[in-house]
């Protein structure tokens, strides 16, 4: 994470002011604070392809488009709930024990999401396996709590988490679509071609690494500043 981004995060201003050429998409959108947060989180600070965070679910849960979408939405809900909680409790939690406190808040919400999925969509829960409980150790969930929600109101924290969650969901769905299309010749479970030769490599772990690597390269090539951060 560059210094400019860190400052932008703590002050709540858009990173556009700091990094040179603005993204055209952002110019057409309303210039309110909430919108700026959302856009910055979805594109400028896209957790998967720009920040290289949360790689485990990005690769483990994207063999099918529907798995990627479900994983992204579960993570988004868990992030929003924990960021809102942290934002609401930001003046109550003592600074010395804030990290353990955040971990427990996140673990609580992730447990709820996990139990919900197991109760209402058991096949999906089985397909995602341990990657739903592993949202607890998802770098950006704790990252948003620490970098943003600990200094901002619950409402703004929820918006910030929504932006990150949407960016994450979009990246995971895109990966899922690509891998499912090449691996099975289908989209969201609907077979598109008759006699499609399955690219087995796309379904096994190696394909996940190759595909994410390619996307990271493509996104970096077309980003204005060419910066890609490293995860913790």
């Amino acid at each position: 994470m560059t210094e400019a981004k860190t400052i932008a995060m703590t002050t709540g201003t858009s990173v556009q002011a700091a990094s040179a050429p603005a993204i055209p998409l952002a110019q057409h959108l309303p210039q309110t604070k909430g919108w700026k947060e959302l856009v910055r989180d979805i594109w400028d600070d896209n957790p998967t392809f720009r920040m290289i965070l949360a790689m485990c679910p990005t690769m483990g849960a994207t063999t099918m488009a529907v798995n990627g979408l479900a994983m992204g939405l579960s993570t988004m809900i868990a992030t929003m709930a924990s960021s809102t909680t942290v934002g609401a409790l930001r003046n109550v939690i003592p600074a010395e024990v804030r990290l353990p406190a955040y971990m427990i808040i996140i673990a609580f919400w992730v447990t709820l999401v996990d139990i919900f999925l197991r109760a209402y969509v058991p096949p999906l829960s089985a397909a995602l396996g341990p990657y739903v409980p592993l949202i607890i150790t998802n770098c950006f969930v704790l990252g948003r709590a620490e970098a943003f929600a600990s200094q901002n109101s619950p409402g703004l924290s929820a918006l910030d988490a929504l932006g990150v969650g949407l960016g994450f969901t979009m990246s995971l769905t895109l990966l899922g679509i690509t891998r499912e299309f090449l691996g099975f010749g289908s989209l969201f479970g609907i077979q598109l071609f008759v006699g499609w030769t399955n690219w087995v490599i796309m379904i096994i772990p190696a394909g996940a690494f190759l595909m994410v690597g390619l996307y990271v390269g493509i996104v970096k090539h077309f980003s204005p500043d060419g910066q890609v951060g490293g995860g913790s």
Partner: protein
Amino acid sequence: MDIFLIVMGAILTNNILLTTFLGICPFVSGVSGEYASASGMGMAVIFVLTMTVPINWLINHFVLQPLGLGYLSLIIYIVTIAFLVQIVEMFMKQFLPALYTSLGVFLPLITVNCAILGGVLFALSTWNLGFAQSAAYGFGGGLGWALAIILMAAIRERLRFAPIPEGLKGPGLALIIAGLMAMSFVGFSGMINIRDFGG
């Protein structure tokens, strides 16, 4: 014999990094850029995984299950991991200062390394291994993770002066190298299946 097979299986066929994607963040970021930091992080993961998997097994079987608190397991596991990492850090600082200075930076990072919680979840919920088997899986999983990141660091040191397309420099190429490594590990698949040892 079981124990040996599980250790080998955790390293080769069920490599925690290359087949289940756990602990990739340090793998593609700066840590794997240098051989020294990669081996330091690898040692720390071996140490913490070997301790956390059996201890969480004991907590799960003697506290959570008899009391019917299964729904609290995730919160308890992560608190246990954070607590153990702290203890290990304090213990090392006091008694093994040399090791502490070499691992120091990496130990706190390990709490949020998904390889640790992932290893615990695979051993306890997905495969339901016994106590000795869990300990073996923890140790083997750590070894496998360390092997992968050290191999990666060695490859990246060689690539430092190679002509790489601008967009792929850094994480992009690291991921593609990992893909090639994962492909070569496919050759081991089917030799040992850890699932068979579970209850």
